[in-house]
C-alpha cells in the first residue's frame, strides 16, 4: 500500500486490517495532536462513506494507494468557530422539525429523524470540545447574558439527559417540548456565544 501525507510519500509500514485502523495508526504516529485529517483519498478517489461504506468495512487489501491531506488542528478549530452558525442553524431547524413530528406523526417516523438530529448535536459538541482543547480556551471566562459557556455546556448535557429520560418513558410530547423550547433556546444561546469564544481564541 502506497501512502502519501500532504503530497509526500510516507515510508513507514502502517498497521491495521481496514481503512479505519490504518488511519488511526497514521494519526497516532505521523500527525500527533498538532494536525488532523482534512481529506482522505483511496486509490485516487476521495473517500466518502456514502459511496464506500464505513471505513471499518474497507479492507486493507482493497487499498492500493492512500492519500491524506492534513490541516493544523488550531486552524481547524478556528475554522469551526468561524462557521459554527453553518452547523447550528441546520441543527436548530432539524430540532424544530423533529419536535413537530413527535406532535403530529407516529413516533417511528419521528424517532428516525430524532436520532439523526441527536447525532449532529453530538458531533457539534465533540468538535466544540476538541476546539476548546486545541485552542486552550477557558469556557468559564466567556459569557453571554450572565451565563458562561461552561454553564451552557452543563445545561446542554443536562438537556440531553432529560431527552433520554423522556425517550425512556416514551413521553413523546415531553420530548417535543424539550426539543422545541429548551434545546433550541440553548442552541440559540450558543449561536451568540461562539463568536465571543472565537474572540478569546484570537486574543
Amino acid at each position, binding site marked *: 500500500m502506497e501512502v502519501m501525507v500532504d503530497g509526500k510519500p510516507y515510508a513507514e509500514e502502517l498497521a491495521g486490517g481496514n481503512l479505519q485502523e490504518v488511519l488511526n495508526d497514521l494519526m497516532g504516529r505521523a500527525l500527533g495532536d498538532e494536525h488532523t485529517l482534512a481529506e482522505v483519498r483511496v486509490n485516487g478517489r476521495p473517500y466518502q462513506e456514502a459511496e464506500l461504506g464505513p471505513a471499518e468495512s474497507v479492507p486493507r487489501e482493497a487499498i492500493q494507494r492512500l492519500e491524506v491531506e492534513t490541516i493544523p488542528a488550531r486552524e481547524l478549530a478556528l475554522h469551526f468557530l468561524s462557521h459554527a452558525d453553518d452547523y447550528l442553524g441546520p441543527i436548530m431547524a432539524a430540532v424544530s422539525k423533529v419536535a*413537530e413530528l413527535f406532535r403530529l*406523526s407516529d413516533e417511528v417516523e419521528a424517532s428516525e429523524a430524532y436520532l439523526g438530529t441527536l447525532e449532529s448535536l453530538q458531533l457539534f459538541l465533540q468538535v466544540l470540545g476538541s476546539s476548546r482543547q486545541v485552542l486552550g480556551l477557558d469556557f468559564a471566562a466567556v459569557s453571554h447574558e450572565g451565563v458562561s459557556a461552561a454553564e451552557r455546556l452543563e445545561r446542554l448535557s443536562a438537556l440531553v439527559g432529560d431527552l433520554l429520560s423522556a425517550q425512556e418513558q416514551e413521553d*413523546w*410530547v415531553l420530548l417535543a417540548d424539550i426539543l*422545541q*423550547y429548551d434545546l433550541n433556546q440553548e442552541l440559540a444561546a450558543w449561536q451568540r456565544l461562539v463568536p465571543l469564544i472565537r474572540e478569546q481564541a484570537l486574543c
Partner: protein
Amino acid sequence: MDHLHRNLLALAQHQPELAARLENTPPSSRAEVLPSRTGPPALRLGRRWLTSSVDPVAEGRRLAQQAPEGPLAAFGFGLGYHLEPLAGRDLVVWEPEAGLLRLALSSRDLSRLLSRVRLGVSLEELGELGGRSFYPLRPYARLYPARAEALARRLEAEPRGDEVRPPRPASPRVLVVPPLLGGSLPVAWWCAEALAELGCRVRSLPLEKMSPLYDLIRFSRLGEDRLDRVRAPMISFLGELTLMAAEEFAPHLVLVLAQAPLSVSAVRALRRTGAVVAFWFIENYRHMTYFREVAGAYDHFFHIQGQELAAELESLGANHAFLPLAAHPPVHRPLELSPRERLRWGAQVGFMGCGYPNRVRIFSRLVERGFRLRIWGTSWPRQGPLAPLVAEGGRRLSSREVVKVYNACAVVVNLHSSPEPTDGVASQDFVNPRTLEVPACGGFQLVDRVRGLEDLLRPGREVAVFTREEELVEMARHYLAHPDQRRRIAAAGYRRVLAEHTYYHRMERLLTHTLGPAAEDRPPAEAPAAALELLAALGAQAPGRGA
C-alpha cells in the same frame, strides 16, 4: 359558575344525554391537570403528557393548522386546545375515555367549543361519519391505538363528502360461510335465503356435511394435544376450501356466521380476494370469548349485544355494528295444526329451549310451588322436579317442530339463558331469537325483561314481559284466563316482527352497511315479493290462538 357546570350546560344544549352522563362520571383518577410553563392548564396521564407541558395553546393552534380540509372526525379531546381553532368547522370528536373528558370539562371554559361540536365517548355515538377526515391527537392515538385504528377504518369504509358512494351491485354475489353445526347453522341458511330473496346471487358452503367427521373429534376421549393435531389441519383445509370457493365465485361479500371454522389467516386471505368479509357474531360474548381473536380481522363485525361489547370491540380495533337476531317468515309462521299435533306439541304453558343452569334452577323452584309447565329441548336434568315435564325424551327438535310448539302452546315462556345458575330473571343483555320467532308464529310470549328488548317489541302491547319469578307465575295465570288479551298482544307482535324483524330486514341492513345502499331504481327491499305472497296466503289465519 365553575368550568364544569358552564361546560355541561353548553353541552346539554344539543347533547343532553351525554351531559347528564358526564355529570355522573368520575374524573379520571390516572390523569391530572397541571399549570403549563406558560400558564394555561396542561394534561398528563400517568407519566406521560397528553398536551404540551410548556405552551398547550400554541401547540393546539399548530395542530389545528395541520388538520385536513373539510369535515373532521377528531380522535381525542385532550383539553380541547387543538379543537378550539376548528370550532367553526364541521367537527365530531371521539374522546375514548369519559373520565378524561370529565376532567377536561372541569379544567377550563370550553363552552364555546362544546356548543359547536358533536362529542361521543364511543364510536357508535358519533353516528354517520361519511365524508369526514381523520384528525387524531397523537398522544391519544398512541394510548388507544386499536380505537384510533377503528375510527380510521370506519372513515375509510364510509364515503367522503365529495365522493358519491357507488350503489351496491344490482345482484351482488354473496358467499355464506356457515358453522359445521349448532344454533348458528339454520341462521346461516335463513340468511342465505333472505339474501337470495333480496336479489343477491348466493352461494352457501355446505360445511354441515363435515359435521359427522367433526363429531369424531368432539366426542373423542383422547387428549386435547392429540385432537389438536386433527382439528388444526381440518380448520386449515376448510379455510382453503372457502378461499377456493371465493376465488371461483368472486363474491362481493363473504358473510361468515358465528362458529364458522375460519382462522384469522383464512379471513385475511379472503379479504385479499377483494371481497368485503363480514362476521355475524350471534353469541353471548361473555361466554364465547373467541371473538377477541378474530374481530379485528374482519371488514365488518356484527353483534347482538350492546354498549359493553361495543366498547370492547373498539379496543380491539373492530369495525362493528349492532345487528339483532330475527325471525324467518318462511319457517316461523302460523300453522294449521291438527288436534293430534296440538296434543303432541301444545301445552297451557310451554317452554322450548336448552336446560341452561339458570333455567333449571328457576323452573325447578317454580314447579315445586305448583307452576305447570311443559318443556321441550335438550340438556334438561334426568331427575328432579323438571324430569317428568320434558317432552319428546329431551331430544333436539328440528326448526319445523319448534315452530309447532310456538303455534300450539297457549303461553310460550321465554327465559334468557345463562350458564351461571345464580343468574336471575331479567339479568341478560341480549335478545334471543325466540323473542322474535314466537310472535312470527302468531304465538303468545311471556319473556323476561332483558336489555334491548324495548327496542324490538313494545312490552305489554307486542309482548308480555316479566321481571321476577313470581311475576311469571302471576302473568301466566292472568293471560290463560284472558285469551282475548293474549290474541291482541300476539297479533300486535306478529305485525311488528313481520314489519321490522325478519332476516330480510337484517340482511338488507347488512348489505347496506357492507356494500352500500341499493340502487335507487330498485324496489325497496323491505319485504320481498315472495314473502308478501306467503303472508297473503296466510292472511286468513288469525294469529294468537290458544292451545
